[in-house]
């Protein structure tokens, strides 16, 4: 599958990445090359093969319902680029 400029724009939008206009064609080429490479897999017969969910062959372990974290806003907010009291602050969200 060949990736177009539009597909690059769509993927960039999905991934929230600003891509400069002049880079879009180059990226389309690069992404097409990668996809072309991975599409070799089409030749492999995977009928009746289950997808691998875990290389360790294990299933989920659960924890007890105990409160043993939180109540440490400073540990959570220490690296905030912008904060107001104990809130993170971001540019206005328009709903």
């Amino acid at each position, binding site marked *: 599958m060949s990736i177009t400029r539009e597909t690059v724009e769509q993927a960039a939008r999905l991934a929230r990445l600003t891509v400069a206009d002049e880079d879009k064609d180059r990226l389309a080429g690069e992404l097409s090359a990668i996809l072309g490479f991975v599409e070799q897999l089409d030749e492999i017969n995977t009928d009746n093969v289950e997808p691998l969910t875990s290389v360790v062959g294990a299933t989920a372990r659960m924890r007890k319902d105990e409160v043993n974290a939180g109540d440490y*806003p400073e540990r959570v907010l220490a690296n905030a680029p912008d904060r107001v009291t104990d809130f993170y602050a971001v540019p206005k969200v328009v709903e």
Partner: protein
Amino acid sequence: MAQTIKGQTGEWEIVIGMEVHAQVLSESKLFSGASTTFGKAPNHNVALVDAALPGMLPVLNEECVRQAVRSGLGIKAAINLYSVFDRKNYFYADLPQGYQISQLYHPIVGEGELTIDLEEGESRVIGIERIHLEQDAGKSIHDQDPHRSFIDLNRTGVALMEIVSKPDLRGGDEASAYMTKLRSILRYLGTCDGNMEQGSMRADVNVSVRPMGSTELGTRTETKNVNSVRFIRQAVEYEARRQVELLESGGKVVQETRLYDPTKGETRSMRSKEEAHDYRYFPDPDLLPLQLNQDFVDAIAADLPELPDEKRARFEADYGLSNYDAGVLVAEKETGDFFETVAKGRDAKLAANWVMGELFGALNKAGVELANSPVSADALGGLIEAIASDTISGRTAKDVFAIMFETGKSADAIIDEQGLKQISDEGAIETALDEIIAANPAQVEKAKENPKLKGWFVGQVMKATGGQANPGVVNKLINQKLG
């Protein structure tokens, strides 16, 4: 009867499916050890993983799994011993990971059902598609600053059950009855507190309409986050009418997300600038598949409480209550329990009447929850005993109840203090009556001609006994003596 809409072109059927988000009752969050307590200071109920700090990993809370299974059993659903957590990828300020952990492909609970109770004793069985576990999001606060939004992650990662119904509901009344019943069941199970004002339960309501008799589904809209039973009904009714009007005027329903505005009583489109979401679901590689064993499920099943439908049937059978009364009493677990305490070893019908009549009336008027009732179940039982033993009359009982409600004192104490114990001793009443008859020969003559005037003698006896004479005995004696 299912609600329909009579349009200009004919009758339309309303088709509704609901996705209810119910907050799981647990101490800590679905994947972190932070508390789920409501109303804490911002970002205090936040573990490192909730803030999606680099390298942090989710660890599944066993109790949340148990609660989901319990809820599934409560709606007679198939429990999937194998389930998988998927990532739902999208960006939002209050979604720190950039994805919500949910269960798309393999939910923990499969198909089940729930019986909704409609007016006039009607009921219908509504299919449930699935229940899956997922994370709640945080909160953005927009009104504190002109240029910035504030983010509080206290809710982030709290466990939610998403309970998805089949498109089996046929009107606003059914949709609200569904929510009421689901809430009741979850509260009985103790898996959700059902507190809709705090957002513990909210519904996404999918509505479409189709010409009566059609079997195809129309295009649906999804009205998000409706947080009261009344609003659900209003939203459905508004939305269905809007769609019918649109279709009848040659328009088309657009599949979209809408919001219900309770102040205006209407739904409106959440016009998003973005194109359709592409959530890029895939199994969360940080979480291995969840494999439960049957013993785990069986242990929960063995421990399941009596649910409202069973309790209602038992109230009818054991206490001889009407279907309606039983329904009212079981709607809330607390009410049913309260009633049973009152009724135990006493006249059950009388108990039901007092609980639903005087008590509910007084609570309503005072704006007090049953849990905080100044009259306890035992106290109300005491009053009912006093009535049943003819210690006081029904009339006096109402006065006693009013004092009980106000003071919290027991019925016996009030009866004693105020000397309200009624006189049922025929001899004493007869003596009083005889004296009145002897003193009022003219009245006796009149009453013999016109039996309606016997009431005057009742009043006189009550006066003479300080209102404590048993009215039944008084009437009986008057009838004997005055023919």
